[in-house]
């Protein structure tokens, strides 16, 4: 999936360099995209492990799950959902403009995406901070007097593992998109034949969004 992104064709050449072992540019792009889909499949299965932990423990401790999820701040969670969905829109628009060769717009849209990603992390920081203050923490660190049911610390174990893993993916996604943005600004060579880099980065970002779309109701709304 890096073959085209590393090609460094230079502003003079609007097409990316074709690596010598591919039959044609279409095949190369196809390979990159298929590789990305496979990679996303691994990401889905990575998160699946946590979803299974969630499902099993919710099955075992339904009351604790309901009580604990109500201690979360639904407003912040909803805002975060909206922020992430909107950032997904701008990422999709960045691909759209990359296909049309409007490099300025690509950079603008990616910039907006990054701003919203930072916003997401800041809101997440406030949520975490609140939890550290009242003591709704995983496992043996749990010290909240408000909810005393077996299984509640486990909820927060799942909560922290899932959101932290998602947070790491947000950061990785930001790095990937930042590379595309810098390229759109510096080289400005995205165009109808050369948008794979933006497309793959944006696919990754949509996956981050996708995971959150599932995490949000599971964590905040049960």
């Amino acid at each position: 999936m890096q073959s085209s992104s590393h090609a460094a064709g230079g502003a003079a050449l609007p097409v990316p360099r074709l690596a010598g072992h591919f039959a044609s540019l279409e095949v190369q792009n196809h390979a990159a995209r298929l590789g990305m889909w496979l990679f996303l499949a691994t990401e889905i299965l990575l998160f699946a492990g946590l979803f299974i932990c969630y499902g099993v423990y919710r099955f075992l401790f339904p009351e604790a799950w309901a009580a604990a999820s109500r201690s979360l701040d639904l407003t912040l969670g909803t805002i975060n959902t909206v922020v992430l969905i909107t950032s997904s829109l701008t990422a999709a628009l960045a691909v759209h403009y990359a296909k049309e060769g409007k490099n300025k717009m690509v950079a603008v849209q990616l910039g907006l995406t990054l701003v919203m990603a930072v916003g997401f992390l800041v809101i997440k920081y406030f949520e975490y901070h609140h939890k550290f203050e009242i003591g709704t923490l995983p496992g043996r660190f749990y010290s909240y007097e408000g909810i005393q049911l077996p299984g509640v610390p486990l909820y927060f174990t799942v909560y922290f593992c899932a959101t932290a893993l998602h947070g790491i993916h947000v950061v990785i996604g930001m790095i990937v998109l930042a590379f595309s943005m810098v390229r759109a600004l510096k080289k400005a060579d995205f165009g109808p034949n050369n948008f794979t880099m933006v497309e793959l980065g944006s696919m990754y970002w949509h996956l981050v969004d996708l995971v959150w779309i599932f995490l949000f109701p599971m964590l905040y709304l049960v």
Partner: protein
Amino acid sequence: MGIANESRQEEQNMREEHHGAGRYWLIWGLLLVLTVVTVVTGRIHIPTWGLVLALVIASTKGTLVLLYFMHLADHRGANRLVFAVSIIFVVLLLAIPMVDLGTRFRGATPPGSTYSDLQAIDIGADAEEGRYGGAIRKEGKMGEESGAPKQ
């Protein structure tokens, strides 16, 4: 062309049509509406089907993102297959442990859970207790009043 190859069919499956940007805004609008729906229905706390409803809405949203933001609607062949297979395996991975838990000998489920015959153990805040096994408990802490021992 340097190398022809046998992936011509798949290559055609990958062709992407270029749409206007309006489509993305439309999907975005739908996603926001569904978010509102899920928050509103989530706050009602429907007893049994609440989680199912939330997951159905989430799946709908996820499908929209996949099909249109990630262009799976335009892709055919291998890409769809990869995604479908990964979802099948997520479902498999979820289903079998649930089947196991649902049919398990109650003594083998974690203590304190709805399906357990065991005493709820101290879930305590103290770092030491309970760390090396479930038997250590302090008197007069939360285990008793909350743990729903079913005996």
